[in-house]
């Protein structure tokens, strides 16, 4: 083996090791807090605040989980969150998919301005929208209701979903809809029979975005909801934080449990995220 080949291989190995070191570091940074929360959630109640770094502490158990489920309204909060999140996701994706189609395919006055306005809403910090949202929901008489929350969440995630879907629709050849029109569908029929089935990757991304945003949201919920029974889990968990004492075990157990729905949705929708579905439909 000549020196050049050895040097090349060494360079390749260093590059390989560096890349993997970075990947491992990122994974550790992401996973470590989760493992610590899991560790705290299974500690006995008298050892929650401890310098012990072992993942499974001595005397580990599910006492915190049981207390959370039995002594608090956690299941109710989880239910509230689920209702609001699922409704928000479906309404958000439905509205965005049709609005994005209009932006992608039709010419109408204010189209460009509308798109820029939608984009500009994403540049405003979420905190600034709290007051107008509060006033709007209050005027509608929807304070402390599911509907109020669903409206607030749907409208705030619509712009992003519209942009994602519009971008995807733009890549679908118009000739597919035209072929469908000649074949006998209406414009709406072409959208439902041809465009929507082809857009599952983008629809999945929009759904996931809507779902995770609504599921993890705290600020708007804090303003709109005020009775404990209507709380979402984000507000509910803060109930466990007292002025003098915080139930860290239950807090950690709750944090672990709320990741489950997101995980299920993500794993389920990942199969729809396969792109390249339009391959082979047109020339090439």
């Amino acid at each position: 083996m000549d020196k050049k080949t050895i040097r090349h291989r060494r360079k390749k190995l260093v590059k390989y090791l560096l890349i993997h070191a970075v990947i491992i570091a990122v994974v550790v940074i992401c996973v470590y807090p989760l493992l610590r929360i899991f560790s705290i959630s299974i500690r006995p109640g008298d050892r929650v605040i401890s310098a012990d770094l072992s993942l499974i502490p001595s005397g580990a158990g599910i006492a915190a989980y049981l207390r959370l489920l039995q002594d608090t309204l956690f299941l109710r909060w989880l239910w509230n969150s689920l209702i609001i999140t699922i409704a928000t996701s479906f309404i958000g994706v439905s509205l965005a998919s049709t609005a994005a189609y209009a932006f992608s395919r039709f010419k109408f006055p204010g189209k460009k301005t509308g798109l820029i306005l939608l984009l500009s809403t994403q540049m405003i910090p979420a905190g600034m929208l709290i007051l107008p949202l509060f006033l709007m929901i209050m005027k509608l008489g929807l304070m402390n209701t599911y509907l109020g929350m669903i409206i607030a969440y749907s409208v705030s995630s619509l712009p992003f979903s519209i942009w994602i879907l519009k971008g995807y629709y733009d890549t679908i050849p118009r000739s597919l809809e035209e072929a469908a029109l000649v074949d006998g569908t209406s414009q709406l029929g072409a959208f439902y029979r041809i465009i929507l089935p082809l857009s599952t990757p983008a629809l999945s991304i929009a759904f996931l975005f809507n779902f995770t945003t609504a599921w993890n949201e705290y600020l708007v919920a804090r303003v709109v909801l005020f009775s404990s029974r209507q709380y979402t889990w984000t507000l509910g968990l803060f109930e466990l934080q007292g002025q003098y004492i915080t139930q860290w075990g239950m807090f950690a157990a709750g944090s672990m449990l709320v990741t489950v729905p997101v995980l299920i949705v993500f794993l389920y929708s990942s199969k729809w995220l396969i792109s390249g579905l339009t391959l082979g439909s047109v020339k090439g």
Partner: protein
Amino acid sequence: MAEVRFSHVTKKFNENMILNGVSAEIKDHEFVVIVGPSGCGKTTLLRMLAGLEEITAGEIYIDNVLVNNMHPSKRQIAMVFQDYALYPHMTVEENMSFALRLMKLKSGAISARVHEAAAILQLTKLLKRMPKQLSGGQRQRVAIGRAIVRHPKVFLFDEPLSNLDAKLREEMRVEIAKLYQRLNATIIYVTHDQVEAMTLAGRIVIMNHGIIQQVGTPIEVYRKPANLFVAGFIGSPTMNFLYGRLQAEGEKLFFKNDSLTLYLPPFLLADAARNAGREAALGIRPDDVVIGPGVREDCSEKIEGILEVSELLGHRENLYIKAGENRILAAVEAFFNQSPGSKVSVGFNYRNMHVFDKKTQKRINNS
């Protein structure tokens, strides 16, 4: 099957005039090819007939029924798109049966029609495949199959072969010709390829700048081009054009430019006195350029030229000749055996010579 009639059809995009009062009639069972360069409005005309483009003014009739505002699916047409436009999430069978399912036909009838079309197009073994699993030629056949199953009144083809490679294009051209013989349908076929137009068409409609330049059989538009555009567009290699002025000397008419004087016999262009003084263009197809010494009755007097380049194409050879300021392309039998730079005698076949008025661009000789 049906007749199609365009009556003063106009299309404007903003202020751009795409089609300017196009009128044409396509007869029952006729294979008409609309040909022209990119941007001439041929695809727009086809899309207007399909109902995919609004009509600014004028009328379109299918079987004497005004279809201007009729939904595409009600026009009883089927269209084959340039990019195939197969539904990627459906199998070949589902693609072909899509329109029939929308018509709510019985499943037995749908299956029979799909299998009949598949048999014609040799797609039977591919029915369960997805479009992405097919080659370009197979996809094009599926697109044609999707049109056939509907039993439409008129078939519309929008540059269907332009995405295929040269060999496959040739094969598909023959397939389409066979299909026409079998279906005996009314077909309107749009292309920019004059070879496709010449080989497939019963009649050719030649368009440029949104205006129909000429309508005729392939041999008519080849032998008697109506104007300079048609003469230059139809035929490969392209027609030679010599520009100059017509001059009369007594009863005789001559074509003259700075480096050339050619006698034009009365059977080519009569009435010397009336035509004298006209700015004109002579059109001669490369096949009608006669090389070498010797006198022929139907041939012009010989002029001297210099052979600049020769291209051997197998059975034919293209000779690029410069005669004074005139550049002439001659297509002759292979193995001309003259090297570039050598002198050649060039004559033109009067029988296939064309004279155009340079100002109006129109052909002025009658023969």
